[in-house]
């Protein structure tokens, strides 16, 4: 009885939907196995997770066909609570799933519900807290914890139950690169210590494969299209075909004309074998690849001098920040949570008042402008589009800012129509906002800012939680705006985004700017990487393996090649 979980010709249709979400699912998980499930948004991977942890069919109703068994028992004959005894789920948003007032209570939650009494309750909570290394924070409230610590707590919260299968639903979504890397290491370590089976659902394949997995399942349109080892799967072009980003080192190898085969062990940058032949290919490509052109020198649009701000008057959230932004630039601001990235943009927009320092916009002193007047020049788009949308119809939502500025109806019409066209929302102009996908809603919020015709637009995590296809869609859209002369500032954790789209990056740490340089220079500087909680790009490792001495230049050429050759 080694099989833990088995899908046989399994299908599922939500009651609220006309077509099934899952078809012909056949796969099984053995005890102690570690499996990565990848696939684009809407491929059915979340539904699959719900089927395994029992939310389907017990919370989300629908029709099941075929069979899904846990230890040989049909799950639909069990109850949600019986399933929870064996299957623990760490949800995507570790912030929202924190139900206790303190760390200890959150870990204790499942035990409390199971009527575990004292002294066992306290003992087991302490035991688990030590296992996930959070025992020094037992009395802390969720707001006092970092993203990584919150994830340790949610892990502890499911591990108290002696589960045999752990599911992680997009564990990397809200973490900065360094914390994400630690999370993957923690999962690996716990799996080895406890012997549980692990399912990781994630579209950031390269980051998950930082630690080895036994199998990789690729889903698309409700079906499983591949179920094999990472080495096998990464030797095919399936990932890219299905809209999942393939690891960067693999892209580079393919550009260099290398045929990737399973025996090269392409599953991870640590294992991939670069022989003499391959190294020569990569060197040849490197020499021929175009070197990055220096960006055209334009006028300064935003000049920030010695800006400081503190929320509580004690700790400076931003400390002596000086930045010079050129018109038409595409700029990334990176750094760990709490480093001051968001605070910086809030002070720029006038949401918070600086304690000292100056801001000049097109050489005019910005400090006397109100929030509203600043918004005419610098637009701010929040991370979650639901935080901004307040109208039912798309047209009204986009028109909102103009209406409150007392613009005439006629002008509102033409300006909104123009903006909708630029933003690719023209076909939807008569739709209600609720009918749109997440990515489209994001566009609506960007459109509702663009309509005010700001010269600079700041976006907080523009692509958070988006799969590769939507990510590309949003970023290409921002690039077109940028080509129309809009200066784009992006606050992001996503290193791919900064590599692929930003001309320059500013790294924040502890409220200070620790580096202001082009992205290749930042992502190959190990000191900055550590302090800004970033992660070294695998390209750097690849070029070491291929014997190329100048890693920064290699990364620069890779970026230029992608922009000029691949994306055209």
């Amino acid at each position, binding site marked *: 009885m080694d099989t833990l979980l088995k899908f046989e010709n399994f299908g599922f249709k939500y009651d609220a939907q006309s077509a099934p979400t899952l078809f012909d699912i056949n796969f099984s998980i053995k005890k102690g196995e570690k499996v990565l499930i990848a696939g684009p948004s809407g491929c059915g991977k979340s539904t699959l997770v719900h089927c395994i942890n029992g939310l389907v069919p017990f919370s989300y109703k629908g029709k099941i066909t075929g069979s899904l068994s846990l230890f040989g028992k049909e799950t639909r004959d069990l109850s949600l609570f019986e399933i929870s005894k064996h299957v623990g789920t760490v*949800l995507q948003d570790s912030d929202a799933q924190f139900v206790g007032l303190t760390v200890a209570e959150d870990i204790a939650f499942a035990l409390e519900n*199971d009527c575990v009494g004292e002294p066992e309750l306290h003992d087991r909570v302490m035991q688990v807290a030590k296992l996930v290394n959070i025992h020094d924070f037992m009395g802390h409230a969720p707001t006092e914890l970092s993203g990584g610590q919150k994830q340790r707590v949610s892990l502890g919260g499911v591990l108290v139950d002696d589960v045999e299968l752990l599911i992680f639903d997009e564990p990397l979504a809200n973490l900065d690169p360094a914390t994400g890397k630690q999370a993957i290491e923690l999962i690996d370590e716990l799996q080895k210590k406890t012997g549980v089976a692990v399912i990781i659902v994630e579209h950031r394949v390269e980051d998950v494969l930082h630690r080895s997995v036994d199998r990789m399942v690729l889903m698309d349109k409700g079906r499983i299209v591949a179920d094999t080892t990472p080495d096998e799967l990464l030797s095919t072009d399936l990932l890219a075909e299905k809209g999942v980003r393939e690891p960067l080192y693999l892209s580079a190898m393919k550009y260099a004309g290398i045929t990737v085969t399973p025996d090269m062990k392409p599953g991870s940058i640590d294992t991939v074998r670069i022989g003499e032949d391959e190294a020569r290919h990569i060197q040849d490509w490197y020499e021929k690849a175009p070197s990055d052109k220096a960006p055209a020198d334009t006028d300064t649009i935003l000049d920030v001098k010695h800006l400081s701000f503190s929320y509580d008057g004690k700790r400076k959230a931003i400390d002596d920040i000086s930045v010079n932004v050129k018109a038409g630039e595409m700029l990334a601001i990176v750094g760990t949570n709490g480093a001051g990235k968001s605070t910086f943009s809030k002070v720029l927009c006038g949401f918070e008042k600086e304690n000292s320092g100056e801001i000049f916009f097109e050489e005019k002193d910005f400090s006397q402008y109100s929030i509203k007047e600043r918004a005419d020049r610098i637009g701010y788009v929040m991370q979650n589009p639901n*935080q901004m949308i307040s109208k039912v119809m798309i047209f009204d939502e986009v028109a909102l800012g103009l209406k409150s500025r007392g613009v005439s109806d006629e002008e509102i019409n033409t300006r909104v129509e123009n903006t909708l066209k630029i933003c690719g929302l023209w076909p939807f102009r008569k739709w209600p906002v609720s009918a749109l996908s997440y990515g489209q809603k994001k566009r609506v919020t960007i459109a509702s800012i663009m309509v005010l015709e700001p010269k600079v637009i700041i976006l907080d995590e523009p692509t958070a939680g988006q799969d590769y296809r939507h990510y590309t869609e949003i970023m290409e859209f921002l690039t077109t705006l940028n080509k129309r002369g809009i200066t784009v500032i992006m606050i992001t954790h996503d290193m791919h985004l900064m590599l692929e789209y930003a001309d320059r990056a500013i790294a924040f740490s502890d409220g200070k700017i620790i580096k202001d340089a082009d992205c290749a220079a930042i992502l190959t500087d190990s000191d900055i990487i550590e302090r800004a909680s970033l992660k070294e790009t695998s390209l750097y490792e690849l070029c070491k393996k291929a014997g190329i001495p100048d890693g920064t230049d290699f990364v620069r050429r890779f970026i230029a090649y992608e922009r000029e050759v691949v994306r055209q």
Partner: protein
Amino acid sequence: MNNLFNYIEKESPVHRLTGATKFVCLLLWNFAAMYTYDTRYLLVMAILSFFLFALSKIKLKEVSFMLGFTAVFVVLNNILVYIFSPQHGTEIYGTCTYLFGLSGKYAPTAEQLFYHLNYFLKYLATIPSVILFVSTTNPSEFAASLNKLGVSYSVAYSVALALRYIPDVQKEYYEISKAQQARGIEMSKKAPLIKRIKSASAILIPLILTSMDRVEIVSNAMELRCFGKNKKRTWYMGRPFKWTDIAAMLFCVLLVIIAVFLNFYNKGRFFNPFI
């Protein structure tokens, strides 16, 4: 963090009582103090309150905001009572003793001043007990003990859960309101009321929508960890009832009995030294 419950963790006999005990005592205590105007009784209650405060090791500095707030309120309240019914004391006590050789509607009378003394004592007897409850009761432990008293655990837990999410919602409200102001939603007092109500919807709708998303995640997270599985649950922060809890509650019951007794003895709610 500014929390509804400004719980201050300390080691004291008051802290050691369970939340439910303190809650029951709070109700009984305040009922007793509200019920009677007997000056002697109120004086004893006020002294007792301050004794309890000392016992709890809560420093005045730590609750200075709440104290200051109520002090202003007490003074204002007294002044208003005097302005609107300067003869209230005379009506109650049935005599009229002018002081300082003055007379007239607003002239001070011994009865009125005595009434104000009682009024003031009432505050002294009640306010400290409320502040004491708020600052010595751990909200999670309070939820646990409510459940022990027979309140259903889903209701009791929702108390704790609400406290858990208040800071999140506050933060979100602040961010949404700033972003909407940037789009030109006028929230300041300059705008007319109707416009401001309309503007509020531009903040409330996104706030409600994002909160609904959160509710779905939270309820999934709770169900996946077996909330609602059994008719009962245990509480990590729960504490057993001890004899001190029983004693504290009995003491408060005694206070109520005395208050009721005084009502008969004084033939009314007021103790009258003027006859």
